[in-house]
C-alpha cells in the first residue's frame, strides 16, 4: 500500500531534521557534521554564556507580558466582533484584526519602527528602542491570533446562557465575568499560549524594533546562525525543543478535561 508509505515519508521529512539536530548537539567535535563521540560539553558552554542567558530571560519576560496583554485586548476584540453586530467603523476594525494574520513580518517590522521613530520625534515617547518597543510590537501582531481563537469559541457558545443571566437581572459586566469568561476560558488559555509562542519565536519584527541592550534570544540565535552552524546553537536548539515539547504536553493535559464542559 502506497499511502502509509507516503505518510511515513511525510513524517520523516517533518521530524528527521529535528532529530538530527538533537543528536548532533551531543557531538564532542567542534565540526558540527563530523561525529567525534558523545559529549555534553556544548551544554556546559551554553550555561556559561551570559549573553544567551540574558537574552533568554528578556525573551521570556517579553513573551509573558505580550501574551497576557494580547489575550486581554484580543478577547475584547473578539467580543466586539462576535457580540456587537453593528457599530461605526466595523469594516475597518475587522480589517485591522485580519491584516496582521497575513502581513509579511518584514513589513510589520518596518512600519512599527518608522512609527516609533515618528512618535519619538513628535511626543518624545518611546525614547529610543528598548524592551518597551518590542513588547508593543509583539502585542500588536499577536493580538489578532488571540482574537481568531477566542472568536471561534464565542461563536460556538450557547448565547441563551448569557440571555438567561441578563433576564435574571445580572449586569452585563457581571454576566461577562461570571458566565461568558469561564465558558471561553480554554480558548483564552490556547490564545495565550499561541501569543506566547509567536512572541518568543519572533526574529524579524524584533530585529526592526529592538535597540541597544534589548537583545532577545531569537536575535542572538539569528546573528550567530548567519555566520554558520555551531554546536552551541545545536545545544540551545535542543533545550528549546525539549522545553516546548514538555510545555505542549502539559498544556494538552491541562486543557483537555476542561474542554468537555
Amino acid at each position, binding site marked *: 500500500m502506497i499511502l502509509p508509505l507516503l505518510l511515513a515519508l*511525510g*513524517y520523516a521529512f517533518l521530524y528527521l531534521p529535528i532529530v538530527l539536530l538533537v543528536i548532533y548537539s551531543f557531538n564532542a567535535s567542534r565540526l558540527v557534521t563530523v561525529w567525534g563521540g558523545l559529549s555534553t560539553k556544548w551544554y556546559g558552554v551554553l550555561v556559561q554564556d551570559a549573553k544567551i542567558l540574558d537574552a533568554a530571560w528578556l525573551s521570556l519576560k517579553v513573551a509573558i507580558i505580550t501574551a497576557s496583554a494580547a489575550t486581554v485586548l484580543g478577547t475584547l476584540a473578539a467580543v*466586539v466582533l462576535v457580540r456587537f*453586530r453593528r457599530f461605526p*467603523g466595523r469594516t475597518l476594525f475587522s480589517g485591522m484584526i*485580519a491584516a496582521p494574520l497575513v502581513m509579511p513580518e518584514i513589513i510589520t517590522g518596518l512600519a512599527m519602527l518608522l512609527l516609533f521613530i515618528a512618535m519619538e520625534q513628535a511626543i518624545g515617547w518611546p525614547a529610543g528602542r528598548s524592551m518597551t518597543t518590542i513588547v508593543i510590537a509583539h502585542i500588536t501582531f499577536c493580538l489578532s491570533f488571540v482574537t481568531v481563537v477566542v472568536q471561534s469559541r464565542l461563536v460556538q457558545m450557547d448565547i441563551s446562557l448569557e440571555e438567561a443571566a441578563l433576564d435574571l437581572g445580572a449586569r452585563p459586566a457581571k454576566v461577562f465575568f461570571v458566565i461568558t469568561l469561564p465558558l471561553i476560558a480554554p480558548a483564552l488559555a490556547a490564545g495565550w499560549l499561541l501569543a506566547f509562542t509567536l512572541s518568543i519565536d519572533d526574529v524579524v519584527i524584533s530585529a526592526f524594533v529592538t535597540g541597544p541592550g534589548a537583545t532577545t534570544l531569537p536575535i542572538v540565535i539569528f546573528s550567530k*546562525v548567519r555566520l554558520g552552524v555551531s554546536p552551541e546553537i545545536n545545544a540551545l536548539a535542543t533545550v*528549546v525543543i525539549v522545553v516546548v515539547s514538555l510545555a505542549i504536553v502539559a498544556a494538552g493535559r491541562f486543557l483537555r478535561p476542561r474542554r468537555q464542559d
Partner: protein
Amino acid sequence: MTAIKVESASRRSSPGGRDQGRKGPAIGRRLPGGRFLVGLPPYLWLGLFFALPFLIVLKISLAETQIGIPPYKPLLDWAQAGVLELRLNLGNYRTLFSDDLYVIAYLNSLKIAAVSTVLCLLVGYPMAYGIARSSDRHRNALLMLVVLPFWTSFLIRVYAWMGILKTEGLLNAFLLWIGVILQPLQILETDLAVYIGIVYSYLPFMVLPLYATLEKMDRSLLEAAADLGCRPFRAFLSVTLPLSIPGMVAGSMLVFIPAVGEFVIPDLLGGPDTLMIAKILWSEFFDNRDWPVASAIAVAMLVALVAPIMIFQHFQRRATE
C-alpha cells in the same frame, strides 16, 4: 425590575428599533455605554500601532532621501510666505521599476513562492489524505504530529536544515556513502535549499485545511462511484480531487502569502543569487539606510499580496457560510 430597565436602555440605543426582537448579541444589545468601553481599547491599539504605521510607510515612500536624521525630507513644508507646500516624490517608485534588481527580486519572490506552494501541495496532499483515511484511533495523534513542529521555534527548524544541506553536511555525507554521487553537491545557498526550507516550514498550513475538507467529504459518493464500476484511482481523480479544491486553495494561499514576504529562509538557506524582495528591503533599510526606497518596496509588496489575500478570504467566507 432591573431587566426592564436594561431593556428600555437598549431601545434608546437602537434608533428605529431595528435590533429589537432579534435573537443574538445579548450583551452588545443591552450595553450602550459598556459597548463603547469594551471596543475602545483594541480599536485604539490597532489604530495607533497597526493602521497608523502603514500610513507612515506610505508617507515615507513618497519622500525624498536625504543624508541626516531622519534620512528623508518632510512631505509638508512651510514654504517662505507661510504657504504650506506638499512635495510628493514618485521617484522611489520609479527607481523600483527602472532598476532591474528590484524587478527581478520582485518576480523571483513570486516564482519561489509559487514553486514552493506547488511542492508543498504535492507533499501535503498525500499526508492530509492519509490522515483523513486513517482509523479514528490514530487520527488525532497523526494531526497532533503535524502541528507539533509549528510550536517549536521556526528559526531553529530553518537552522536545522543548514547542517543537513551544507556541502560537508549530513545529506551530502549520506549520498556519498551510498554512492549516488561522487562529489558533494552544492545545495545550501541555492534556490533548491529555499524551496526545501519553505515547504518544511509551511507544511502544517497546507495539511490542516486540506485535511479539513477531505475529512468532511461524503464517503457515499466514492461508494456510488465504485458501484457504478469506477476504479479507485479514477474515482479519486473525478470525485475526491474536485471536492477538495477549497482546501487546496486555502492551503495554497496560506503558504503562498507568507512565502512571498519570507526573509529568514532565503537569508539563511539561500545564496547571494537568491534574490527575494524581503531580503532587498532588509538591505535597503539596514545596509543602505534608504528608508524611502525600503518603504516603497514594502508598499509594492503589499500590492502583490492583495490578490492572493482576496482569493483566500473569498474561499474562507464560502467555507464558513
